[in-house]
C-alpha cells in the first residue's frame, strides 16, 4: 500500500478523484502498463471509448463498473486476445501490437470465465503453462506455488473436479507462474468463501509489495476493492468516469461508501460526468 502510494506520487495519478486518469510519462521508469486512447468498436457499438490510464510498479489498480461497462473488453485487449480499434497498449514500454510475445511474457491473468482445462491435472496444467510462459526452474516454481496456494494434496487431481475455490487457487497459481510484471485479475475472489478470499487478497497484496509487478483488478465487491486497491478507475459506457483513491473518492463525490458511488456510476453516469 505504501509502495503503491509512493508510485502514485511519482506518476501524479493519485488524487481524491473527479478527473479521469491521464498518463504521466516517466522517462526512466516505464509504467508496468500504459494504455493510451484505447478504443474498441463493434459495428455501431462502442465498447471502450478512448480510455487512457497507467498501472505503476507495486500498484494495485481497481477497474470498476457495472456489467457491460467495458472492463472485460479492456482486459481482453491488454491480453492480446482482442484487437483494439484504436489506441496503444504498452507493457513495460513494449507495444503489444508490434511485440506481442515479448509483451505477454511479462503478463499473466486469472479470470472467473477462463478456468484451466479440466481434463488435465493441477500439476500438468501448471507445467504446460510454465512452458508456454518460458518459466525457468519450472519444477521448483511449481512446487513453491503448490505450497503457496495449498494445492499440494491436489497436485494429481484433474482440474475439472476441483471445487470452485480450488479452481480459483489454481488459476491464481498459474497467474503467478512467470512472476508477471503485470497481473490482470478479473473477479479473482468471486467464488471464494470469505476466509479464503481474505487469504488470497493477502497473497496478492504481498505480490504487489514484494515483486516489481503491478496489478489491474476487477471486482464487484467494493469492500474488497477498498481494502486492496491503491487506486480505482470507474468505467461506464466504455469511458473512465472517475479515478482516484478508493478511500477518499466516495466523499469527494458526496457518497458515504464506495458501493454507493458504484451504484451512482451504474445508474446516473451522466450526473457524475458533470461533477
Amino acid at each position: 500500500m505504501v509502495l503503491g502510494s509512493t508510485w502514485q506520487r511519482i506518476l501524479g495519478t493519485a488524487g481524491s478523484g473527479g478527473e479521469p486518469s491521464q498518463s504521466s510519462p516517466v522517462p526512466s521508469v516505464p509504467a508496468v502498463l500504459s494504455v493510451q486512447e484505447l478504443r474498441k468498436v463493434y459495428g455501431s457499438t462502442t465498447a471502450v471509448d478512448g480510455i487512457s490510464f497507467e498501472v505503476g510498479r507495486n500498484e494495485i489498480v481497481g477497474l470498476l463498473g457495472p456489467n457491460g461497462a467495458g472492463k472485460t473488453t479492456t482486459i481482453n485487449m491488454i491480453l492480446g486476445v482482442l484487437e483494439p480499434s484504436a489506441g496503444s497498449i504498452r507493457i513495460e514500454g513494449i507495444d503489444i501490437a508490434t511485440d506481442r510475445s515479448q509483451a505477454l511474457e511479462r503478463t499473466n491473468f486469472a479470470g472467473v470465465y477462463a478456468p484451466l482445462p479440466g481434463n488435465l491435472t493441477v500439476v500438468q496444467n501448471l507445467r504446460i503453462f510454465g512452458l508456454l510462459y518460458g518459466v525457468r526452474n519450472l519444477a521448483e516454481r511449481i512446487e513453491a506455488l503448490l505450497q503457496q496456494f495449498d494445492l499440494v494434496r491436489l497436485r494429481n487431481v484433474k482440474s475439472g473436479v476441483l471445487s470452485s475455490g480450488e479452481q480459483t487457487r489454481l488459476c491464481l497459481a498459474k497467474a503467478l507462474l512467470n512472476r508477471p510484471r503485470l497481473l490482470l485479475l478479473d473477479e479473482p475472489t468471486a467464488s471464494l468463501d470469505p476466509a479464503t478470499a481474505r487469504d488470497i487478497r493477502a497473497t496478492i497484496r504481498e505480490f504487489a509489495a514484494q515483486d516489481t509487478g503491478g496489478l489491474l483488478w476487477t471486482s464487484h465487491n467494493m469492500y474488497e476493492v477498498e481494502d486492496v486497491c491503491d487506486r480505482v478507475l470507474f468505467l461506464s459506457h466504455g469511458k473512465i468516469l472517475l479515478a482516484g483513491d478508493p478511500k477518499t473518492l466516495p466523499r469527494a463525490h458526496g457518497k458515504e461508501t464506495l458501493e454507493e458511488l458504484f451504484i451512482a456510476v451504474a445508474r446516473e453516469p451522466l450526473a457524475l460526468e458533470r461533477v
Partner: protein
Amino acid sequence: MQFNRTAAIALRQYYLIRGSVARVSPLFAWVAIDIVLWGFITKYLNTITPGFNFVPTFLGAVLLWDFFSRVMHGVTIAFLEDVWSRNFLNLFATPLSISEYVGGLVLSSSATSAVGLAVMLVLATTVFGLSFFAYGALFVPFLLVLFLFGIALGIVGSGVVLRFGPAAEWFIWPLPALLAPFAAVFYPLSTLPPWMQLLARLLPPSYVFEGMRRIIAGGAAPATPLLWGGCLAALYILLAGWFFTRIYRHAVRTGLLARYSAESLS
C-alpha cells in the same frame, strides 16, 4: 519461434492421450479394423481373380489413405481439445505465437499418426503378407507427400472450426472421405471423367496413388510426378498456414477468440 512453447502443446496432447482410453484406442483401433476388413476383401478378390494380386494395390492404398486421414485428424483433434476445454483465452493470452501453436498441433499429429502407421504396417505385413519392398524406396516419399497434405488439410479444418464455431467440427470429419473419389485411391486416374481428373491433378494424393499403381505394374519409378505432388503439398501447407493466420486475426479483431471460451459461437 521458441520450441518450448511448441513442445507445451504437444505435451498437453500427450498428457490427454496417456490418461484416457477413449483417446488411446482411436489411435489404432479404426485403422486396424480397416486393414483387417480390406485385408480379407483383397484375399477374397485374389481367389476369384487369379493372376492378379490385389494386396499391394488395395491394401496398400487403404494403408496409405488411412495414414493421410490419421495425419489430418491428428491436427484437428489436437486443435479441438482446446475447443472442447474452452482453452483459447488461456492459451492465446500467453506469449504463444500462431506458428508455435500450429507447430505443436503438427508435432502431436506426427506422433499419433506414427502410432497408427506402425499398427497398420504390422497387421498388413504379418497377417496379410503385404510387402512394402514392392513399392521400393518411393514408399518414404509416398508417406511424406500424404503427411504434408494431411497437415495442410488439418490446419484448414482447424481454421474452419475457429471461424464458424465448435459445431463446425462436423464439416471437417468427412473431409478425407469427400476427397477420396478425386484422389484416385483405388482406381487409375483415367477412370474418372475429365472434370474429375482436372480436380484430381490438384490433389497431391492422386500422384501418390498413380505412382503406387505404376510401380506395382512394373513401370518406372514416377519421380517427376511425385515431386510435383510434393511441391503441391508444400504449397498447400503454406496456403493453409496463411488461411489459419487470417482466420485467427479475424477472430482477434472481431472478438470471436475472446468469446470462444464462453462457447458463444456454438
